[in-house]
């Protein structure tokens, strides 16, 4: 028997929000099974819900005169990274990576065999990063970051140490404007035996200390694969240059919540037999507020247990 519309609508909304109990869900399923009009209504309401979640174009004001236009466009671009991790972002600049490189940011299911080839817990890493993008494997570089022991709010994810992001620039660089604290590491993949279709997985754990102000932060993992020798890159290559020369890349950006809870972020990138290097790029970004000038200092942002694995048998 069909239930009245005024009873059906709350069931559908409750289902969209994940708040139905099993009895209500059974009622909704029965109604959808029996009533074609209920199915149409469900599909209409669900599609509105889906569009709100995935269509960032909805949030860009048509009128360029709108006081919200720039803010919303900026947010829309940022949002596209969340829903579409196939879009790369680095150093605060959203890059149109489709011009020359490929991006693939999907975490493969657990059916594959994973071989760990790199693990960093910062237990014996150098105390501070060096500036710039590294030109050889073996060191962490980029913006200012340093090895830290437990703080009152954040304990290492494992072991005794972790890496703390300190600034969105480096004392030797003094960027005029930066919202992103970026660190890099090059991993040599050239010695891996070719074993068919496979991917590289990069994962890292991030945490943020107690909230000190209204700023909002995200963390990101970005894996960039190069088929070229590092010395074939321009001498002062920045992240945009690196992406222009990349064979494939993947990034994922996730909002951080305060309180010292660790959050894992991982990306997978298909690996070609010609791949020589992985450039591992980890970052903390200040999402709000945006700044017109100056560089951000990070009040308590950490990364630990960075791992790189090869997924065989795809």
């Amino acid at each position, binding site marked *: 028997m069909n239930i009245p519309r005024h009873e059906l609508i709350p069931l559908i909304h409750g289902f969209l929000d994940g708040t139905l109990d099993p009895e209500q869900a059974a009622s909704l399923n029965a109604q959808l099974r029996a009533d074609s009009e209920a199915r149409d209504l469900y599909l209409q309401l669900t599609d509105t819900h889906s569009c709100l979640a995935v269509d960032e174009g909805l949030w860009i004001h048509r009128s360029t005169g709108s006081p919200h236009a720039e803010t919303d466009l900026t947010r829309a671009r940022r949002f596209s990274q969340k829903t579409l991790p196939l879009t790369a972002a680095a150093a605060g600049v959203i890059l149109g990576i489709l011009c020359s490189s490929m991006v693939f940011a999907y975490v493969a299911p657990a059916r594959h065999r994973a071989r760990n080839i790199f693990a960093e817990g910062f237990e014996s890493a150098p105390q501070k990063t060096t500036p710039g993008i590294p030109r050889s494997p073996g060191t962490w570089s980029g913006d200012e970051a340093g090895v830290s022991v437990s703080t009152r709010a954040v304990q290492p994810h494992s072991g005794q140490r972790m890496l703390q992001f300190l600034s969105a620039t480096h004392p030797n660089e003094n960027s005029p404007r930066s919202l992103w604290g970026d660190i890099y590491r090059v991993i040599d993949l050239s010695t891996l035996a070719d074993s068919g*279709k496979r991917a590289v997985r990069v994962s890292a754990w991030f945490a943020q200390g107690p909230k000190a102000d209204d700023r909002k932060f995200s963390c990101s993992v970005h894996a960039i694969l190069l088929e070229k020798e590092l010395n074939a890159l321009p001498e002062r290559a920045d992240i945009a240059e690196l992406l222009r020369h990349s064979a494939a890349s993947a990034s994922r950006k996730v909002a951080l919540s305060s309180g010292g809870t660790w959050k894992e972020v991982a990306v997978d990138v298909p690996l070609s037999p010609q791949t020589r290097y992985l450039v591992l790029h980890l970052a903390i970004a200040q999402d709000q507020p945006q700044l017109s000038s100056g560089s951000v200092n990070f009040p308590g942002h950490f990364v630990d247990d960075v791992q790189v694995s090869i997924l065989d048998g795809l």
Partner: protein
Amino acid sequence: MDPMNSNAPVQPLTQEQFMRLFLETERELLRYVMALIPNPSDARDVVQETAVALWRAVEKYDPSRPFGPWACRFALNEARLHLRSEARRRVQLEEDVAELLDARRVELAKPLDTRREHLRDCLERLPEDQRELVRDYYFNDEKIEHLATRIGRGTEAVYKSLQRIRQTLHHCIERKIHAQT
């Protein structure tokens, strides 16, 4: 036809071609999957599984045919697997209901696209506080608990507000469609 068992000889896509096609289709795949699995995080997981399945079967794709419908068949398979695996753990659609909805969604593809066009206008007509709430929940991906704390209300009340706003948007879209006809 089983998407994994096409017998026609085809020229496989290169990795780059595949990724470009997938990029163009990913948003629609997510929208498609969310009709059956409305939780965005779960739907994204299903699309991720779909990407892996598509990549594994890329040699079977015939580039002379549209990529979207081919990819949607894989997405439907992955959504079914998700529904089966999660059936005991959480409240969700039953599989036969999902099949019915999927069939109807194909028929409603164009009207749903029209509704989406109206959604933007309707969203802009919302009062600022409602628009902010929807934006923070859907667009900025804020958790309900965080939203509730920030605006000083209970989670139940925030859910109710979101439901009322979605219903307002639904009515607004209906009015616009009615006005067009």
